[in-house]
């Protein structure tokens, strides 16, 4: 199985948050973008970007977890959270330099993108619904990392905190 992540073109992204809405609807069956696994930021006046799990090689989130609640599939690089073990401490959220983890506002455990396996017919819902085709589901080796390197701190700084 090829490792793929969701990437966003910040020039195409309009900041509409539809990706956040559908992600939360698909994963939690709730209308609350705060439950989304993909997070958006708008930095005035015109910078919009959506970020979700980058499937890092040495995930800082995994290292940060004191309860071994975070694991990574060696083949797909998918990050998983064991809800039973997670106590919502938030260290993983702080350590992720892309700001793509959060503590779910309802059940208070960490949530992270799972690329919609077993949901939405296996196609990431955010990519499926994005009205401007700003989101793509691509193999990691095909990513222009320069852009992400340039912008990831912006996401981390501006993501909502509660």
């Amino acid at each position: 199985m090829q490792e793929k992540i969701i990437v966003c073109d910040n020039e195409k992204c309009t900041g509409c948050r539809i990706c956040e809405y559908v992600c939360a609807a698909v994963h939690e069956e709730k209308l609350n973008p705060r439950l989304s696994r993909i997070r958006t930021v708008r930095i005035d006046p015109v910078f919009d970007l959506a970020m979700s799990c980058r499937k890092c090689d040495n995930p800082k989130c995994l290292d940060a977890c004191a309860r071994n609640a975070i694991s990574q599939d060696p083949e797909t690089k998918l990050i998983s959270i064991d809800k039973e073990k997670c106590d919502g401490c938030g260290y993983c959220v702080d350590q992720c330099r892309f700001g793509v983890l959060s503590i779910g506002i309802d059940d208070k455990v960490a949530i992270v993108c799972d690329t919609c396996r077993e949901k939405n017919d296996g196609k990431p819902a955010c990519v499926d619904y994005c009205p401007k085709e700003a989101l793509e589901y691509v193999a990691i080796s095909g990513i222009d990392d320069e852009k992400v390197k340039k912008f990831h701190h912006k996401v981390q700084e501006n993501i909502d905190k509660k």
Partner: protein
Amino acid sequence: MELKGYTGKYLDIDLTNKEVKLKELPEDWAKNYIGGIGFGIKTCWDNIPKDVDALSPENVISFWTGPFAGTLVPVSSKYTAVAKSPLTGTIGFGISSGYFGAELKRAGYDGVVIRGKADKLSYIFIDDDVVQIKDATHLTGKTTWETEDILKQELEDKSIRVASIGSAGEKLVRYACITNAKNRHIGRNGLGCVMGSKNFKALAVRGTNEVVVDDLKTLLKEVKQLYKDCRGEKMYYGREGTPIKILKHDKKAVLATNNFQKMTFDGAENVSGEKMMEEKVRKIIACEMCAVACDHVNVIKKGKYKGTVGSIDFESLWALGPLCGVDCLDAVTKAVQLCDTLGTDTISTGVTVAWAMECYEKGIFTKQDTDGLELNFGNADAMIELIERIGNREGEFAKMLGEGSKLAAQKTGKDTINFAMQIKGLETSAYPFRVMQTGALGHATCITGAFYQRSGSYQYDEKDAVDRYSLDDSRGKLVADGEDDYTVVDSLIICKFSRRIYPDKEKLAYLWNLVTGEKIKYQDLLDRGKKIYTLGKCFNVRHGFTRQQDYLPKRAYEEPINDHINKEAVVKMDEWDKALDGYYEYRKWDKKTGIPKKETLKELDLDDAAEEIGV
């Protein structure tokens, strides 16, 4: 609340007594007033007796969303603010989008009602179920943009949404607006001025709850196609945008120039939407839950106005461009940014400045009167300087203009009221009366003053589906049907730019069903729309408005337009009266007074309104 989509709760805040009350939304409101402006009009009807001065603590301003806010319906993160308007004395409201509406819903409230007056400049922070009235004296004089940034920093969360006023609202410019997300405003009727009169600087909100709808699964499936439809060929809004109407109107000779003295503009190409797209638009961004994305943001890269950022739509471009004879996009962008940051309505600002320019060119104002400004049409520098002074209320001349073109003209005298292009005090829009007469009728019957957004009746003129140079008693139906329809749109609330994705309006009723759980037809929504609009009319009647105020400025009746396309284009008074007759007859209101008849009000279950207005 039986119907889903609503939270069933709203806040009632008294700034004088510093009291915050949590109230239940009356059970019958959804099925009678839908939401949005429906709830706002009902609130004003219930709370604002006649003789209340719009600038007094007795005025009540309420913010409302509709059941669609926070759901997947495009384009639904909208909210309204409704009050007695300090500009017109009628009911006044505006609708804005951005991120604010959905956030307020997620905080747990369908609306916020605000009464009284704070003893010092204050802001309200709604943090889910914790609501605080806080000191805003440190925000005195801050622009709307600064206010939003400062509050996000103070409250330590960039996801907090803020609706605020600038210097114009604080200093009671009568057409001051409320701004959120920098580029989004509640404009027209001076709702920002009402906030200022209450020492109410900003409303900040953080909402972390879910929004509950009746059938999320089906809704999720349905909207997929709707989002695609938002990018259809007719949806220019998300591509070239409404500014492309400049050249279109110029070619049709309906581009009001130099305060409506001409209908074509030599500089049209320089302020065209096409040029703007090519040279000035840095990016097109969206509001929350919008698949259209229509926000064209100009960033000026060089020259005198380097660094200026302004979000421009057709009406603003027209009002601060051709209407004032200005043919420079950079200058228009600067003017728009000033309006947005100081917090004034761009249309009213442009039309009032254009009136002042005509007075200056006619010698009615001297350079001394204008505090040194050479207000010739086309003098962009003077226009920009004047707009800044109006927003800050600097100097007697700018202060007078901040009262609106009607009051400024009444004060100035010398028949300048004849070309103060407003109705009931609200400055009119880019659809000129003499050459688009069905549109004119819609502007005149509009309960908030001269505006087309309550009926959209200009569309018949634009398509030449009617004889746009004359009127008869059949036009009233076109206007009234448009009013009821748009009232539904403004109560649900969805964006008017999303209307084209519903060629079959029953789809909207179907979305209502999926969100609220109530199975109805679109006609049921229209019936509620008619009730809401009529109640708004009753509010105006209570506050002294009759048929007498449904007339155009004298220019429209007495100064024919003549050019290569328009021949002796003027509104004829006898035709106007017949058209008004036709409108009132269709509405089943009294022809002579324009007041709704008792039977008509009873049919709409507005018996108490009938009694109160004495019919």
